[in-house]
């Protein structure tokens, strides 16, 4: 009985002593943390994807609390609603950023782009691109080894077995940019989602001269500048034999789409063309 008592008392005294020391130590080394950081972190999506440019949601919350002007900060995953909620907590102004989405700028399907070589090395786009230009005549295009798909943490991408190209599932894409960084060929780009999710882009990154590009891939941009001439809004620039559509200037008129001789300009989520539009095209063909 005595032993039990002594044990309880001595341990109790030790515990109390430790508690007192810990209390003073905690007071001495106290780190003040703005409670708003926790509050902001609460409303963030907690995906820790790095799409905002910070190493995680907490770092982003800290940055939001610390900086006076948060208009340059944006959480692409949470979107406008999350940013608004966070701004309300902090009492700061936030500018609604346009929702973005990733697009794959290569249409070098097996059909469009004949294979000229066979790759049997490591299954990694970065390694393959450091070894050679690719298994087709186009040294700019998709290698099809799926490093972007591996990088995607939101289940928003898959490799299409038939075309050999990655496909983006628009509803899942949060425009975090992980795939953009993963692609060694810089094929994937974040573009404005556009009104009603409609957008137009040049689905090619080949910078070869027209003849060489066309020989390597029948869907390549050949840099003919026809689209640049017809565009009423100066949204298209052609540099290094490659057209690029500025999504801030593009008004989605689709004039360039019909003009492109290789169908390199892609439209997304537009309703199917009315028969009226088709008529002149038929007349031309005849």
């Amino acid at each position, binding site marked *: 009985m005595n032993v039990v008592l002594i044990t309880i008392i001595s341990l109790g005294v030790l515990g109390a002593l430790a508690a007192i020391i810990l209390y003073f130590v905690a007071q001495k080394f106290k780190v003040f943390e703005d409670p708003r950081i926790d509050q902001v972190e609460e409303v963030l999506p907690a995906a820790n994807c790095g799409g905002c440019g910070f190493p995680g949601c907490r770092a982003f919350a800290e940055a939001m609390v610390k900086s006076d002007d948060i208009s340059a900060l944006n959480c692409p995953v949470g979107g406008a609603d999350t940013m608004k909620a966070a701004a309300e907590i902090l009492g700061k102004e936030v500018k609604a950023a346009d929702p973005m989405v990733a697009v794959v700028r290569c249409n070098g399907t097996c059909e469009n782009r004949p294979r*000229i*070589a066979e790759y*049997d*090395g*490591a299954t*990694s786009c*970065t*390694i393959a691109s*450091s*070894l*050679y*230009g*690719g*298994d087709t005549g186009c*040294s700019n295009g998709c290698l099809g080894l799926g490093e972007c798909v591996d990088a995607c943490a939101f289940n928003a991408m898959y490799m299409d077995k038939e075309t050999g190209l990655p496909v983006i599932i628009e509803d899942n894409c949060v425009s975090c940019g992980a795939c953009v960084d993963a692609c060694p060929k810089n094929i994937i780009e974040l573009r404005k989602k556009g009104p009603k999710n409609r957008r137009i882009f040049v689905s090619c990154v080949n910078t*070869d*001269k027209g003849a060489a590009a066309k020989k390597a891939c029948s869907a390549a941009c050949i840099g003919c500048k026809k689209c640049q001439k017809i565009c009423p809004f100066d949204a298209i620039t052609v540099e290094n034999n490659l057209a690029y559509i500025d999504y801030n200037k593009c008004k989605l008129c689709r004039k360039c789409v019909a003009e492109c001789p290789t169908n390199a300009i892609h439209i997304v989520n537009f309703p199917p063309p009315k028969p009226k539009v088709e008529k002149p095209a038929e007349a031309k063909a005849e």
Partner: protein
Amino acid sequence: MLKTFSLGGVHPAENKFSAGQKIAVLPVPEQVSVPIAQHIGAPSEPIVKKGDEVKVGQLIAKSSGFVSANIHSPVSGKVFKIDDILDASGYKRKAIIIKTEGDEWDASIDRSEDLKTEITASPEEIIKKIGDAGIVGLGGATFPAHVKLSVPPGKTCEVLILNGVECEPYLTADHQLMIEKGDEIMVGTQILMKALKVDRAIIGIENNKPDAIKQMSELAKNYAGISIQPLKVQYPQGGEKQLIDACIGRQIPSGKLPIEVGAVVQNIGTTLAVYEAVQKNKPLFERVVTVTGKSVTKPSNFMARIGTPMNQLIEAAGGLPQDTGKVIGGGPMMGKALVSTEVPITKGSSGILIMPKEIAKRAKMEACIRCSKCVSVCPMGLSPYLLMTVSDKAVWDRAEEEKIMDCIECGSCSFTCPANRPLLDYIRLGKGKVGQIMRSRTK
């Protein structure tokens, strides 16, 4: 017991089919494409334009930095255009394309076959001449030779080591050069010795070339300070650090150059080019290329002009065999598979290797079984299995700690791996990344 390097190494089947084949001079091609980036360092700057008449040996692109090299026209004729062409890796690179008309050499080049043993040039003049002639390391690394010969202040060179090892299986270009141009190589060695101000030179030759060892040993008696070192056959003995270890038993500290231990290494082909540049005024515009392979009808050694399309060499060796699976530029261990046979010969092309289908394909990768064979064969004492993992998982600080930058990319690890893991591919990826990080730190 024959000497060799102290750590790791493998011994792949030698397969030297083209050994003993006399160096045949390839006819001058109708058109050459001379890439402007044929060496390590900054690409050269073209100084000719479309329509210009050029002679053989005329400067067509000049060095554009300290580590860079001049490029000379390999043929006489008219510059057809300066355009992007497909290079060996399937990327587009700028090249000067020349249409051949006749074969008129620059007047300053001494075309006689006589051996000129007397060295009149001073060390500074020799280095300048080597630089002007655009000579780069012809073993495959293509590092500008004049940079290597300029010993940095505060360091002294004690010994010149010549690489006659040719440790890559299949290749025989250097072997054949030693047989046919022994005297010229000896004079070239003396020129290099003079430039480096050393009185000792060692030529390392692997034991699988007994004829070359015999002939060079006999010739060496006539030249002061040159000795021949027979070496045990072991890959990668041709690596600079391995060769120094094998010949003089000194190890180079991590991240340092051979001059740290008082040695400078040059290749046999480079030495011949040095002889021709200094004594005969002939710039580097042709080189010996081995064309070989198990099913090649006539495995051969060719003297080919830089810029000759590879398919012309393959034609001359009996054409592309039916069962071709891969065409490799260089040797089987360090060479790279080509995407097209139309790519031109460059200063670094030591061989064209044609692999039959059944041995060309890489086997399926399996899980690492921790046998540590890769560790025991690594000549740099690294742990390739670990480096592959950290590269795959992007743990760059760990990769740096594990000395990933010491890797000489010899491929012994991938060669020996029983699970067919692409170790070197991943290590290269890691080296690229870690190198980038280290450079950004020093900026």
